[in-house]
């Protein structure tokens, strides 16, 4: 697997990372080196082995349906939530106008 310049530019656009043409040119071989290195894993025979998607063994633990049971993960903290928002107003986050 490898990427070309157009793919690099597209991934950057999807990730909202602004790249100049020279940066795209530099990143193309860099990303391809990483991909080639990761492809080494393809040499390992994993037939019959369950794919691992998490480093931790075990299964999900579920929470009970209780509002604000743990203050750390509950609501009712608007000031804290908005504290770092650059343009909060009237209890809302303010962002540059986005409209369809």
């Amino acid at each position, binding site marked *: 697997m490898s990427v070309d310049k157009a793919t690099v530019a597209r991934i950057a656009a999807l990730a909202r990372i602004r790249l100049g043409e020279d940066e795209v040119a530099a990143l193309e071989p860099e990303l391809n080196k990483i991909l080639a290195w990761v492809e080494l894993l393809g040499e390992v025979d994993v037939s019959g082995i369950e794919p691992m*998607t*998490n480093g*931790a063994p075990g299964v999900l633990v579920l*929470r009970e349906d209780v509002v604000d049971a743990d203050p750390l993960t*509950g609501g009712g*903290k608007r000031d804290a*939530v908005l504290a770092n928002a650059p343009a909060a107003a009237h209890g809302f986050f303010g*962002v540059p106008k*986005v*409209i369809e």
Partner: protein
Amino acid sequence: MASLSQSSYRIDGATGAWEVVIGLEVHAQIASRAKLFSGAATAFGAEPNAQVSLVDAAMPGMLPVPNKECIRQAVRTGLAVDAPINRVSRFDRKNYFYADLPQGYQISQLYHPLVGEGHIEISLDDKRAGADSEPAVKRIGIERIHVEQDAGKLMHDQHPTMSYVDLNRSGVALMEIVSRPDMRSPAEAGAYLRKLRAILRYVGSCDGNMEEGSMRADVNVSVRKPGQPFGTRTETKNVNSVRFVMAAIEHEANRQVDVLEAGGSIVQETRLFDPDSGTTRSMRSKEDAHDYRYFPDPDLLPLVLDEAFIGECRESLPELPDAKRHRYETALGLTAYAAGVLTAEVETARWFEALAGASAAAQGRSLAEVARQAANWLLSDLFGALAKAGRTLDNSPVSPVAGAELLALVAKGTISNTIAKQVLEKMIESGEGAAAIVTREGLTQTSDTGAIEAAVAAVLAAHAEKVDQYRAGKEALFGFFVGQTMKAMQGKANPQLVNELLKQALG
């Protein structure tokens, strides 16, 4: 069992008839107190950002922990549409940037959804009043149901250059219920949505309130010449009423036919429905929308469900609309029409069952013996009287027990059906009980033979000409004499006695 119906809905183009192919992705808010991955509340109508936890605002270092009730309700919904529950499912990240999505990705389930393939059956003639025949039934496939997070809400009209973001909805649990492209007309899509909504409300997994956004549909539409392979589809996002879904399909299908017949081709794209104009338009900002770069969410381990959990979900399911409808027809002897209307909404079915139960108790008879009287009264008298008073079953001043008291008076012959209608109106006005109204207003039906005979004699004397016509063979006039006699008795005469005495007098 009725036959499978084939929709004959076609769009007539210049080049011939086009068939419409429709699939719906319904987002239904799961009824839970807390959000899918945090403890913040889900209640509708809170102050902006008052129900937002640090998890929902995507603050660094916060980790999602799924709400068991949300999983339980999605499993119950899957069982209700006859779908297998996957013992192992996973959560994935769907990546996109938008101001209403603080994480920069939505936690969803792409590769291993919680619920597999199911189906529901739609009746296409539900609304045909008075139809006693079995309605046409069509089975609509459900491809999958998965669980995911809702996004926040944007407001664009509060400030000239800013949009405001309210994250109260951010992280609320949704079920995405994906249908097969099995629908062929706006009417079928409408029937599917109504039926799905009814099932969700019976199950209690979603309140089905489309006005508050608890249910929204993404509408996939394509057109083709009958017998041809599927055409390219468009997806109209976030349509929030049954009527709008039907209007969006109609408009979009006609637009596609126009494009194709003008020699163009359909672009697979995301569109928006504008309720004011009834049209759809392209959402240019979502051009990249299909490149979501899904990958398994490393914050969440696999969701593994055991048989005991799924068994509890199965046992907690109520009787569902189709089963209830069947029971009303077979065990209670109701018509297909009455059974259909009574089971369409869970509230109506609950009201009817409370009424029938109280009636059986009040009259000392079995459910099957009182069901028809209760159904007829509920569907004609009560619905009519409530509509007249600008009310619905939800805020009816007459309770099922009060209704049963009225029906018992009719069954015992204390009052006639005509008087019962008047008593019902008074019950709705005053909230008073039927027996109290009947006693106070002297509405008790009379079996006083002398009084009825006198009324009969007066009626016949006043209409001598019609009496002659009747005796000459115009038997249809009998109803006229009954009506006149009941009128003279102010509706209080025992109708059977009136019939008997009239027959004697006209003999």
